[in-house]
């Protein structure tokens, strides 16, 4: 099957063309390798990744299942990039985003043969300076104040623009991130790029919440996509930013060496969940709510500083977030070789940074057993643009 020419189109511009498919993800069918030959039989190829439509009221990467591969790029605007130039940049990116979603090469791609269907999503947002420079008003976007436990490194902080690239494989994601940065060159320069991976399927190929590198099921408390609770938690409800949201990107370093010294019981107590299933220690299954008041033999079943309790809506005035994780490792050179740092690239989506993310984070900064093994080393906030209309361009409701 030719990667191009699947669809025929005649009129194109920044907005690309027809869409393929709808926003759905389907469990990857487990493929048994033929271990004799080392290859799967060529007669029965694995079903390819399903394209995720770039169009809709919201950018699709936020509600899509956590992608296997993620790259987040943050860019800084060149001095002369005014509002008119912003529109041009967003039109260039819109062309790219649509082509990537459809598995087509972007126009002028010097490595166009890399393009193939990879369930790519690109989520685009604006940082504080862009919002200010272009005269936009996003009261929901706020700076996250410094936390006592933070050890922020400037190389992982800030940025005037963001593009969160998600996809089914790291090669496609790397190429897409590179393309977006290259095509932004007349307007902006890369500030930082962070990558991560996520395993959103279980051993039999069914969708699963996925785990961080501590082995914890991570994301169980997310409001279910499409639910009324999700809508209320994530989307900015009205105004030019309606359908948009805010994103806080936190780079969390996780100290595996000391974490691994814990007993399993201690590990579970620190988070308040069963490691194997992700279920609260108060019972039920992974998606059951925790029971903050439950006692076992007179003592709290869930420790008062357990992560799941400290971050629970009941302890934070009802505040919630929608979190998407991506695991990272970073090889750091040493005098004699290298060592590896591990962590979580943590994306928090919420309608309002102050009322949701910051509220919960301050509660965790005050007390959270996990603070002993986790440290934020990067932090950035962005206003995420509303969804893309077919024939439109990203940001048109906020910039026109």
């Amino acid at each position, binding site marked *: 099957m030719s990667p191009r*020419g699947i669809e025929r189109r005649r009129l194109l511009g920044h907005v690309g063309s027809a869409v393929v498919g709808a926003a759905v993800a389907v469990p990857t069918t487990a493929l048994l390798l033929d271990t004799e030959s080392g290859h799967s039989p060529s007669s029965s190829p694995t079903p390819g990744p399903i394209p995720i439509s770039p169009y809709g009221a919201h950018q699709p990467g936020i509600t899509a299942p956590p992608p296997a591969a993620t790259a987040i790029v943050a860019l800084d605007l060149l001095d002369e990039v005014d509002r008119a130039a912003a529109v041009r*940049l967003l039109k260039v990116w819109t062309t790219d985003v649509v082509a990537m979603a459809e598995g087509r090469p972007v126009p*002028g791609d010097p490595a166009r043969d890399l393009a193939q269907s990879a369930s790519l999503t690109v989520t685009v947002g604006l940082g504080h300076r862009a919002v200010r420079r272009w005269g936009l008003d996003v009261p929901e976007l706020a700076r996250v104040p410094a936390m006592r436990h933070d050890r922020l490194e400037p190389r992982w902080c800030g940025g005037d623009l963001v593009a969160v690239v998600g996809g089914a494989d790291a090669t496609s994601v790397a190429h897409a991130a590179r393309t977006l940065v290259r095509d932004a060159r007349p307007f902006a320069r890369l500030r930082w790029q962070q990558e991560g991976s996520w395993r959103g399927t279980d051993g039999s190929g069914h969708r699963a919440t996925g785990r961080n590198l501590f082995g914890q099921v991570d994301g169980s408390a997310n409001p279910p996509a499409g639910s009324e609770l999700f809508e209320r938690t994530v989307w900015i409800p009205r105004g030019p930013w309606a359908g948009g949201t805010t994103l806080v990107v936190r780079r969390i370093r996780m100290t595996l060496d000391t974490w691994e010294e814990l007993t399993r019981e201690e590990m579970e107590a620190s988070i308040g969940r069963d490691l194997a299933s992700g279920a609260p220690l108060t019972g039920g299954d992974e998606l059951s709510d925790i029971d903050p008041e439950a006692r076992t033999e007179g003592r709290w079943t869930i420790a008062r500083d357990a992560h799941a309790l400290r971050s629970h809506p009941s302890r934070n005035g009802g505040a919630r977030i929608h979190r998407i994780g991506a695991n990272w490792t970073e090889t750091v050179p040493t005098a004699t070789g290298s060592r590896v740092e591990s962590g979580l690239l943590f994306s928090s989506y919420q309608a309002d940074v102050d009322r949701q993310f910051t509220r919960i984070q301050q509660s965790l900064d005050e007390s959270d057993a996990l603070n002993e093994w986790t440290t934020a080393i990067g932090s950035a906030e962005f206003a995420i643009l509303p969804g893309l209309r077919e024939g439109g361009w990203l940001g048109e409701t906020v910039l026109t």
Partner: protein
Amino acid sequence: MRINLPYRTTLAAILATALLGFAACGDDKADAEPKDTNTQAVAAAVSVSEPWARGTVGSEDPTMSAAFMMLDNAGTEDVTLESASSDVAGRTELHEMAMKDGKMVMQQVEGGIVVPAGKDMLLQPGGYHVMLMDLNRELVPGEEINLVLGFSDGSNVTVTVPVKEFTEEEGHYHEPGTPEHTHGGDDKVVKPSDEAATPSEDAEDDHEGHEH
């Protein structure tokens, strides 16, 4: 890199030629109004995707640019891209890069660009491209221009072409046009200056002008 002088000289000659040819070239398809463009039956065979044009901001010669795209012929007959026009360009030609005497040079395509039946054809830097000359304004990355493509089956296709920054070394693809070119194959390239008389040491960065 070298030869600024021959480049400019050549360019002046080209522009003079361009002016002569303006009436003939400039008014063809662009003004021919969309009566053909809307005729699906005529234009159905070839589709256009991945169109883009090179921005001219900061470029060596902002009066010229090039457009690239994928042409896909779904039909059962070969179709030739015969002409192109745009309201931003006084003159538009179909060009190719070809080896001449050991040097890569740009030249007008004789007889147009054939898209074989059932095949596609990529117009790209270093290969076939639509040369936009005599630009009447700067092309800024992120804007869109219109391009009307005329095909041998009588169809005209209007394409909205996004302008992007040019990311490769300009000299590769942006040499001055050769309007009156008649190089068929075995030809002697007449150098416009003595300096260019030394045979090829750098194939890519020479701004060859071929005038006859």
